[in-house]
């Protein structure tokens, strides 16, 4: 089965600085990749997804991610963060054949003024 590793449990960053949240996956077959954001005591909101095609994917709130098949990575980036980006971010992988979605443990992004 597929699995996801989020390499950083916490990422503190100052407002207007760039940020990268790292995600590596493991799978023996082709996969779909996702990034979700979760604000305190709320459900998950889809930021962006990679299904096929261009390896650079743009999502909501100015986030983007790049699929790197050779490195089995799907890192999330934003060139300039805001206080409101403070949240938990989850990387997820699923197999198209059975829609079995697995989540990483999450990365807590804290944006400081």
């Amino acid at each position, binding site marked *: 089965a597929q699995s*996801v590793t989020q390499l950083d449990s916490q990422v503190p960053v100052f407002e207007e600085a760039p940020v990268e949240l790292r995600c590596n996956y493991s799978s023996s077959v082709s996969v*779909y990749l996702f990034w*979700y954001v979760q604000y305190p*005591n*709320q*459900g*998950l*909101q*889809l930021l962006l*997804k990679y*299904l096929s095609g261009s390896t650079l994917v743009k999502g909501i709130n100015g986030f983007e991610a790049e699929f790197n098949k050779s490195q089995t990575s799907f890192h999330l980036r934003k060139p300039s963060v805001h206080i409101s980006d403070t949240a938990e971010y*989850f990387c*997820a992988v*699923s197999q*198209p054949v059975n*829609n*079995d*979605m697995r*989540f*990483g*443990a*999450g990365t807590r992004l804290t944006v400081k003024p």
Partner: protein
Amino acid sequence: EAEVAQSPRYKITEKSQAVAFWCDPISGHATLYWYRQILGQGPELLVQFQDESVVDDSQLPKDRFSAERLKGVDSTLKIQPAELGDSAMYLCASSSTSAVYEQYFGPGTRLTVT
């Protein structure tokens, strides 16, 4: 914009009591999921429905957990009896047949077992 509805948002119960959570997916979404999210971890699938049928319940602790989606629309997840280790966020998600890979999540139910 259509949303997944869940209730209650918060639930506190004593161990050994029964508890139930309700989920109403986005209208027309055939696939419904229940996840459990322990604090500090990612969600883990408990059960997946396709219409009224269970597709995957391999991670559902069947000695105490049950789930149903009788008419293929809304769903109920029950725990009886609740244990201290069941304290978690219970998330419901749904997806459409045309885009089954894209799951939309509800706000969750935060369960605290005392």
